[in-house]
Structure formats: structure tokens, C-alpha cells
């Protein structure tokens, strides 16, 4: 599949300049810069600030914000909004993420581009509403019923919240897939310098609008690795969208063969383009004895642990997962053959480590450093694991 063309961002949504923002606010700015003009949300700690910022900023950017009655209504409104022609986004946390799952399935099945940011907090259930966790990582992959693929990104700073918001929109438009931004309460509430470039420096992927004759339009394309272009309601295409298993016209087609075609396509369009989607940040991985694989806020603690490990004489590298899903299994498999151990610290009881173990396939030690929700790791625990791995 060829790389999509990009255009400059619409200056109405770009608050160019130097700012001191928290992650939540940076997400809203990123969305506006990416061209998001419709946001349907519901307040939930610690994500509410994103909705509040969008509500405040969008009238001046030609956008619309609506606080819906619950998260389910929010995501339903987003899917409607996307088919009405807008780039759409919402923000939530664990409990809201769980509520949205059925309609995330609808978005995946109907190949609707949308962005959902999950500012993770400790669970399960109501949990610790105001405190950090990384406990929804697997849910981003498996949350809705049935087989499908979604893309998930994980920022480690307010600046990255801005940058990855734009990237999330670009990816969701390119692959017509729901895209998640899995931040957490700490990144969401920490204030840091955020540089917003001028609009002409921001690359935005516009929606792939269909250009051909109306009678030839098909909302879906199940052959090949790319996705069909989109149209919006009101332009006379008279198309149909359904969550039922459907054919390329979008009409219900309830047969086993059709289900195979649809689901294979939903999986293939992401899996076969994984190399183009996956982004990693690697430091000193070449020649390392131990590599620490981490994501989000934990990677900030990891840099201290790695520093200490190097000071202790261990050749340590770090690999930060910027893209969580699709998972970078090829790279991990490659690394596993070269290192003594991979250490995986995360603020949960072991989620991404399961993927690392799967990819490593026993070729090296995999040491998980779990932490319960509510606080970030103490770098010494990660250091201890690195030392363990180096033995």
C-alpha cells in the first residue's frame, strides 16, 4: 500500500507557539491541529481536561463539541460524525473505555476512522480514579468481541501527546481503523513544554475521498491490502453501512464465506502494513546485554534505571514502544536472539510482557517488573531486574 499524501494543517486549529501544557490539553491541541472538528465526550477523571479544552477552543476553530449523556452515546455519535464527513475524537479512561467497546467493534467492522484517547487510571472498576496505571493495554487489543485489529499509540510526554494525536488521526484515516492513544494519568496531568509548529509545518493526512462515478462507488474493498476510499452522507452516493457481515456494497451478506472475507481484510490491512505503522525509540540496543522494553510514563523511569545500570557496568539498552498495537514482534524476536534478557516494567500485573514473551519465544530471559496501579515504579526495582537479567 502506497504512503498516503499529506497536506498542511488547517491554521484555524493550530495554536502555533511555545506552550506549557499538560498531556490532556496537548491532546486537544493535537486533535485540533490534525483537523478534528467534532468531539463527543463524557467527563471522566483524569481525562476531562481534554474535553474541556476542546469545548473551549473549538468554536474558534470552526468545530463542535457535545457532551453526550454517556460514553456509549459519545462513541456512537463519533461514528455518525465520521460518516457525516468529519474527523472525530473522544477521550476517556478505563470505565468509559469498557463502555465504548461494543461500538469500537462497530467502528472496526464498518472501517470508520476515529481516535479515542484513554488516559489510563488504576482499576479494576472504579479503582483509583485520580492515579496512574497502564492496565488497559490488552483491552485496547482485545476489548471488543470478535476478531479485528486496531492501532494503539503510547505517548510519554505532553509533547508526544500533541505529536501522537496528529499521528493517530493520520493512521486512522489511512487505514480506516479506530486508533487509540493510550496515555495515563501522569502524562495526562504533568505540565511540560509543548512546541506547536506553524500550520504549514504540520503534515496531516486528509480523508481519502472517493473521486469516481457515483454508480461505481463501493464503501468496502476486501481484496488486496489497501482500503476503499470514503464518502460522506449527503453527497448522493446512497450507500449503506451496517455492523452485520457485509459485502463490498455494504449490504448484509450473512454467510460464512463473506465473514471470512471481511474479517481477513480487517486483520490483513493492519498486520500486513505493520512495518509502516510501528514506531519504536531505541537507545544503545546494539551490543546490549539487557534491553528494557517499556512504554508511556514508565519509560521515563526506565531512563534513570538504565543510567544506573550502565554506571554499574552492564551494557544496557532501551526500547520504547511508541506504537503498542500492532505489536513490534519482529523486532523483539530479532533482539531476543542477541541479548541475555529483556526487562519489561509496566504499571500493571503483566500485559505487554506477555507479547514480549510470545515474540521472544524462549530465545532469551524475559523479566517482568510489575507495579500495581496508583504510582510509577521506583527505578531501583527496574535496576534490580536489569542486574538479574545480566547474570
Amino acid at each position, binding site marked *: 500500500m502506497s504512503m498516503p499524501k499529506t497536506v498542511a494543517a488547517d491554521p484555524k486549529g493550530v495554536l502555533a507557539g511555545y506552550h506549557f501544557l499538560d498531556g490532556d490539553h496537548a491532546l486537544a491541541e493535537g486533535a485540533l491541529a490534525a483537523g478534528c472538528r467534532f468531539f463527543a465526550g463524557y467527563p471522566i477523571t483524569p481525562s476531562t481536561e481534554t474535553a474541556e479544552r476542546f469545548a473551549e477552543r473549538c*468554536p474558534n476553530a*470552526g468545530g463542535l463539541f457535545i457532551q453526550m449523556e454517556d460514553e456509549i452515546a459519545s462513541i*456512537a455519535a463519533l*461514528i455518525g460524525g465520521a460518516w457525516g464527513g*468529519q474527523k472525530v475524537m473522544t477521550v476517556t479512561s478505563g470505565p468509559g473505555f469498557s463502555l465504548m467497546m461494543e461500538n469500537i467493534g462497530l467502528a472496526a467492522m464498518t472501517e470508520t476512522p476515529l481516535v479515542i484517547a484513554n488516559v489510563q487510571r488504576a482499576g479494576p472498576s472504579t479503582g483509583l480514579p485520580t492515579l496512574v496505571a497502564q492496565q488497559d493495554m490488552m483491552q485496547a487489543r482485545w476489548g471488543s468481541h470478535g476478531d479485528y485489529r486496531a492501532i494503539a499509540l503510547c505517548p510519554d510526554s505532553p509533547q508526544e501527546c500533541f505529536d501522537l494525536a496528529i499521528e493517530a488521526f493520520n493512521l486512522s484515516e489511512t487505514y480506516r481503523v479506530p486508533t487509540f492513544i493510550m496515555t495515563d494519568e501522569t502524562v495526562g496531568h504533568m505540565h511540560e513544554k509543548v512546541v506547536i509548529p506553524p500550520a504549514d509545518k504540520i503534515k496531516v493526512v486528509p480523508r481519502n475521498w472517493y473521486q469516481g462515478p457515483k454508480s461505481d462507488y463501493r464503501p468496502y474493498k476486501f481484496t488486496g491490502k489497501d482500503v476503499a476510499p470514503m464518502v*460522506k452522507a449527503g453527497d448522493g452516493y446512497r450507500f449503506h453501512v451496517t455492523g452485520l457481515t457485509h459485502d463490498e456494497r455494504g449490504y448484509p451478506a450473512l454467510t460464512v464465506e463473506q465473514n471470512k472475507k471481511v474479517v481477513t481484510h480487517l486483520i490483513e490491512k493492519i498486520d500486513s502494513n505493520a512495518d509502516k505503522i510501528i514506531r519504536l525509540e531505541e537507545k544503545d540496543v546494539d551490543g546490549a546485554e539487557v534491553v528494557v522494553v517499556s512504554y508511556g510514563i514508565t519509560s521515563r523511569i526506565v531512563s534513570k534505571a538504565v543510567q544506573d545500570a550502565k554506571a554499574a557496568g552492564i551494557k544496557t539498552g532501551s526500547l520504547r514502544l511508541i506504537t503498542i498495537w500492532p505489536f513490534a514482534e519482529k523486532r523483539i524476536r530479532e533482539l531476543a536472539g542477541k541479548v541475555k534478557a529483556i526487562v519489561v516494567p509496566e504499571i500493571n500485573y503483566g500485559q505487554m510482557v506477555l507479547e514480549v514473551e510470545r515474540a521472544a519465544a524462549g530465545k532469551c530471559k524475559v523479566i517482568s517488573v510489575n507495579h500495581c496501579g496508583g504510582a510509577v515504579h521506583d527505578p531501583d526495582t527496574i535496576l534490580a531486574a536489569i542486574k538479574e537479567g545480566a547474570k
Partner: protein
Amino acid sequence: MTYANSDTEFRQDSPMAEFLRMERMPHIWCPGCGIGTVVNAFAEAVKKSGIDMDKLAVVSGIGCTGRVAGYVKLDSFHTTHGRAIPFATGLKLANPELKVVVVSGDGDLFGIGGNHFIHAARRNMDMVVICVNNFTYGMTGGQLTPTTPATAQASTTPYGNYEYPFSLPSLADAAGASYVARWTSLHARNVTQSIREAMNRKGFSFIEVIAPCTTLYARRNRLGDGLNALEYYQGDAEIAHGADTRTVDIDFQGKIKVGKFVDREKPTYLEAVNERYANVLGDEYQLYGKTQPEREEEARREAAARELEAERMRAEDEAMDEQEGA
């Protein structure tokens, strides 16, 4: 020629050819089901009103009535159970030029979808909601819904329903809907009239159509076939325009008050949004969706079209009166 020469010819010549996805006919609904009649009435309303079909979008939920979206030749959306109304909200707000009509069943709109209904009504969201009320969850085998009358038999109340049902017009009215009407599927022409009125106005319009479910509700309760149901509507439906919505409850096989109960002017959600922003943000604020001159021109055109439509309906009424009088 009473019987069409061929299926192809029938599909081409049928007056529904412009409105239905004829390649998907025949549909899945049961013999005597009221949904097809409602679709007919909707098609008539669309045709008579001369509305731009390219700008008309239909959203439905899950269930027998939910299948309507799949059969109409419009931009149509078959969404998840109960979520047609928030989907329609998003669709309308993303593209305010659209005329959005939600067609779904009583279980979908008022059971799982109840919360969404009352909020869209509260906001006076500009959309038409047509509820085909057959007092049952038909697609799943005849379970009770929030409208099933007390004592009626349903598959999950096999000994008779002991729950209190909603009165849908009362609920809609209390939630803030600005147009509420109820008819039965027998009153197909009145349904057409109400849909026409609803599409021609702004705000949240709710039309309840009582319809038979021959295979489940009628069969379980030994109410006969579709014809018996229509005869029941003929005998027991009472036209009561402007009736107090608190007095229109339906008992099991009891009197059904039909008519237009509520029709009032109220700013729509987007009108309220634009007004507030314009007040607070001043001249800098550009009305959402369109520029100011575009909006003014559109308002002028819409007012003229509404007047023309109202004129057309008045002329039709007069013509009918003349015929009756002559």
C-alpha cells in the same frame, strides 16, 4: 396486466423503485408485519414533500424495524442496539445539511436506547424519530419491551406481563420533544402526513406507529393474524389531536388514542449553540456549519420552501374537502 410479466419488470415499474433497494427484495419481514406499511408511508411522505433524497439519511438500530435502513435507497446506517439516536446526533452535527430520520423499534429505542431518546428529546436535536411499536422484541423471539401492556404474554413473561409499560407520547413530551404524534399502521395516510410535517420542521419530532407483530406478539397472545390486528386498530383507535399526553396509555387490546399530541416551536440544539456562541464570542464567531451570509440565504430559502410545502398541504386539504362537499 394484473400480474407483472416478470420480477425484473415489477422491480422497475414499482412506484417504490426510486425509494427501495429493489435488488434486496423480497424482504425478511413476516406476513402481516406492520413495518412494510410504515416504509410505504415514509416513501410517500418523501415523494410528496419533494425533499432532496440525497440529503436524507436513515439511521436504524437492531431488530426487525432496524432492518429498514438496509432496504431504503438512501444514505443509511444500521447501527448497534439502542444507539441509533446518538449515531444520528453525530451524523447531523457533523453535517447539519442532512435531514436525519431514525427508524427503529420500541425495544431498541426505549429499552436499551431509552437514555439516548430522552436526551435527544431534551436537547431538541433536529431529527425525526419514527418508532414502530409492536409491543415486543420481535427479532429475538417475542420478549417483553418497555411498552408491552400489562397482562400480555411474552417469552420472558410466560405467565403474563406484570410490569408497568411506558406511554411513549408521555415520555417524549416530558423529555421535551417538540413534536409528538401517534398513529397505527392502518392509518397509513396519517402516518405519511405526520412524517411530512415532521420532516418539514426543525427540532425533535417523534412519531409512534402501533403495528402488528403477527408471528410473536399476536400469536403468543392469541390475537389472530395481521388482518385481526388492523381490525382492532380500526375499531379501537380514537383520533384525539392535542390530547394530554398523560391520558394516552394503552391497555392490553384497549383503546388507542392517536393523533398529533404535541407541536411547538423551540430552538434546536444547533440553533441554541450558535446563539450562545454568537452572544458570548461576538462578531468573530462563525456560525457552525456555514458562514453567516450562507446561513441567512439558507434560512430565506428554507422559510420559502416550508411555506410552499404548507401551501401544498393546505391546497390538498381544500381539494379533498371540495370533493367530499361536491
